[in-house]
């Protein structure tokens, strides 16, 4: 009994204190909730977001600024190289009318870019149509792999432009020859990556296929294809990169309409601003193509 009485007394003594503690805690909790809620649209929150943006943007912006600065400095000392301002002015003028047509050798920059993309699309498309199925077969059948391995290792390191004369000889025209060069240089990464993907399929999945006794068609649609897809997309990415690299050089040699030809034409006109602009265009288009495929790859990556 006495023990109880003591605790009761203790409680009485403690209660007011603990109550005040609780209420003060509650108050502070309420206060902090208010703080968080009022944080929306609050200068503090905006300031933080702005800070994040600066942190994220600052290094690349600084890099670009440095690059343009060095370019301007170099341009100051070499009179033939146009500086950033001059190039920018020229670019504004150029892009104000990208789709004019004044005869076969003088067309707007937009037409040139589209012509190059068109060639890349055809050459790359044919390379994909042949390279990807071939990669699957090489990966699936050891015999075919052994059969094609020496040819692939022999032909893959050949510089793309070395194929141009063969193209000109066989097709007897510049345009198909350029497409041929794209095709032959874009096909290797797709064959090799697809074949590697097929080889790297975890044995577990193939065991599942065996245990479930799946048909070849089911194995292909439910196991092979989805498992290889990420590798395939990597191959496609590399191929697109190569194709876009090669098109400029190929067009320089073959002429016609296209960004590579345009560069050569502007070199003959000694319009160096336009050459620099072309370099930027090639870079930006290449970057966009790459990013498109990175997005595609993300869509098809599991886990």
């Amino acid at each position, binding site marked *: 009994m006495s023990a109880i009485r003591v605790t009761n007394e203790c409680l009485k003594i403690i209660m007011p204190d603990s109550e005040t503690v609780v209420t003060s805690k509650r108050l502070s909790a309420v206060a902090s909730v208010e703080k968080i809620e009022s944080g929306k649209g609050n200068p503090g929150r905006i300031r933080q977001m702005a800070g994040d943006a600066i942190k994220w943007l600052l290094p690349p912006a600084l890099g670009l600024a440095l690059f343009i600065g060095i370019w301007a400095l170099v341009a100051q000392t070499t009179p033939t190289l146009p500086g950033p301002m001059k190039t920018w002015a020229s670019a504004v003028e150029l892009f104000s009318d990208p789709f004019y047509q004044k005869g076969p050798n003088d067309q707007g920059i937009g037409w040139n870019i589209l012509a190059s993309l068109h060639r890349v699309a055809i050459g790359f498309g044919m390379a994909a149509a042949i390279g990807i199925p071939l990669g699957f077969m090489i990966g699936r059948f050891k015999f075919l792999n052994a059969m094609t391995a020496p040819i692939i290792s022999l032909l893959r390191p050949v510089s793309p432009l070395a194929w141009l004369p063969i193209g000109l000889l066989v097709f007897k025209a510049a345009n198909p020859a350029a497409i041929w060069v794209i095709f032959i240089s874009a096909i290797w990464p797709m064959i090799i990556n697809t074949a590697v993907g097929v080889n790297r399929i975890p044995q*577990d*999945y193939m*065991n*599942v296929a*065996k*245990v*479930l*006794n*799946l048909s070849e068609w*089911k194995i292909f649609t*439910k*196991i092979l294809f*989805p*498992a290889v897809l990420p590798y395939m997309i990597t191959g496609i990415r590399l191929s697109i990169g190569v194709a876009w690299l090669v098109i400029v050089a190929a067009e320089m040699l073959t002429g016609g309409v296209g960004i590579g030809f345009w560069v050569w034409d502007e070199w003959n006109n000694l319009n160096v601003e336009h050459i620099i602009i072309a370099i930027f265009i090639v870079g930006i288009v290449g970057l966009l193509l790459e990013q498109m495929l990175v997005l595609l790859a993300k869509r098809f990556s*599991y*886990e």
Partner: protein
Amino acid sequence: MEKYVQVENVQMTFDTKKGPFVALRDINLNIAQGEFITLIGHSGCGKSTLLNLVAGLTVPSTGAMLCAGREIAGPGPERGVVFQNHSLLPWLTCFENVHLAVERVFARTENSAAMKKRTQEALALVGLTHAEHKYPHEISGGMKQRVGIARALSMQPKVLLMDEPFGALDALTRAHLQDELMKIAAETQSTVIMVTHDVDEAVLLSDRIVMMTNGPAATIGEILAVNLPRPRERLALANNPKYHEYRGAVLDFLYRRQLRPAA
């Protein structure tokens, strides 16, 4: 005893760079319908190899293997396999993973509505109706393993083969799935062959424990019949002297008679 699965004088030799490697020799094992068998032994003793032989994933070098009176010539739907690492296809939902198996076995005889029902029933059996449309990476390891079990059961196999199905799970999840497996095996009257390295698991689940000697050239060292009444309760067994006797016998085999230097 009715011989449902028969393994007779099986020897398994693998060709390696250093020459032939005898993994298993003189394996003789008869399993009755509805029996729960576990294979236990130290790692490298060829227990998974034996299971793969029954599954038909590998072909024995010599000897004969029969299932329900027919020779085992390759994998077949009458032998459902649950893999150690679940082996679900990550690009298919749980439903689609199970459906792939159902389709293979019943597409000729049943319409799509019946197959859908079968798939759902298999998932319900392992308590995963709610996760039907989730992808494997969205569910826990224990749930993945349950989908693997559902996939194997959905084919209505005569024999369920399990290769350390709970090896990668934490102790609590493992205990839970063991209880569920016992229930499912009793409900479906399945014949089960399970590879394990867990002594408690073996005693809890088995009708007979097949203890294997160390490799290379491993063979069956001893077969222990576990005469504990079913249904078995994990907690009640903890105080059952016979349970500890069996447990002691397996431990004795593994750690006294087959002790191997730390590998």
